[in-house]
């Protein structure tokens, strides 16, 4: 699933205007200064790229995505669930 990870890194870099080399799995979205509207746009791009539905609500008070790898793991799980390969 390495390609899923690198695709997601690319999407985050582009949508949130963050330098690609700063994006590592352990980086928190907050540290990368990714705002809530950036997250909404990132999720949209991820859904389009992998043809999946990510059940994400910006109002969830316990945000499920703290780090970049949280996003990658969630997407990998959703891809596996939908039975598709990226």
């Amino acid at each position, binding site marked *: 699933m390495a390609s899923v990870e690198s695709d997601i890194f690319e999407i985050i870099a582009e949508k949130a205007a963050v330098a690609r080399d700063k994006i590592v799995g352990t980086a928190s979205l907050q540290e990368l200064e990714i705002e*809530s509207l950036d997250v909404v746009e990132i999720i949209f791009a991820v859904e389009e790229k992998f043809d999946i539905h990510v059940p994400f*609500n*910006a*109002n969830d*008070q316990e945000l499920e995505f703290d780090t970049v790898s949280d996003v990658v793991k969630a997407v990998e799980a959703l891809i596996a669930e939908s039975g598709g390969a990226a």
Partner: protein
Amino acid sequence: MNRVVITGLGVISAAGHNAADFWGKISNGRSSIGEITTIPTDTLTVKIGAEVAGFEPQEYFEKRQLGMLDRFSQFGLIAAREAISDSGISFEGEAGERAASVIGSGVGGQTTLDDSYWTIYAEKKSRVHPFTVPRLMINAATSHITMEHGIKGPAYSIASACSSANHAMGQAFLMVRSGMVDAAVTGGAEATITVGTMKGWEALRVMANDTCRPFSKGRTGMVLGEGSAVFVFEMLEKAKARGAQIYAEVVGHGLSSDAMDITLPDAGGAARAIAGALKDGGMNPEDITYVNAHGTGTAANDVTETRALKQVFGHHAGSLAVSSTKSMVGHALGAAGALEMAAVVLGMRDNIIPPTANYVEPDPHCDLDYVPNDPREMQIDAAISNSFAFGGLNAVMALKRFV
């Protein structure tokens, strides 16, 4: 400066097709949020709303007239008829020229737009209904109201997303207060529960999937509503001269712009609008009994609005009764401020504060008295009604019990 009073009101919403039904539910804390039934929901992830259910347009309009009316204009016309009849005001002769109409709507004829796109892009037809343009324009509701009642003075529509109705009613208030007109028919009308619009809201990731729980812990966002509320604002002397009933007095209007972010709210901007309404109404913070909150049920709004209220009201914030009636009739966008004003005005008449329904438990970041779940018997001497729109455009109305 003239004193401005409310002499008539009309409402159509998820809580029923007239003001009495609306108030019957709202004053008892009954939520009208439920499964969406007026559009196909198979492609939607959010399937709940606050719809005007059981609505048969042909009961209100002749077939020929209906061809010209988008759903939002129908709602506006129905609420205006009820308000004008309730007020007993006449727009015959010169009175019509001395009357204004300002109706707020966030987006206008969405049903018409959605249907015509479907016709062209999905059904691949080459033409749409000939009245597509006059149906969808945002000023259609205002124009039809002027035509039906002979209102010949200043008339226009206002679009400022979720603040549209408060901006519209604010304009009407200023015109009557200044003496530019003797009366105004004003409020908001909206009907945006279409597949296309729902898709847009879903994509923003701010919609609740269960229900709308403003200020409560566990809230998951807003629920779309629809409908209209319309009022007759009248110069006090004119209302007295004709022996009209008076519901309440409109005393202040406060406006501001956040100049910050297109979707995120700002406490400073909200506070400036609230403080502006109090100042315009010649009131001190301690004079206010009740706040009908913007209270959308999103994480961002409810915390920011709480902060803004504390900023303006200081130690008195804890004594305010604050509630969000969006918990019962959803967020009707450009009609929201008008539905909320109806809740304030009827609450003043009956000494009842409508509650915030669907409240589960306190959120530590929202620590005011939100009148959770049960209505409260209490005399409302003065109240404000808040609207804070996407785009950072804020408008607040201040009202007083008429004595």
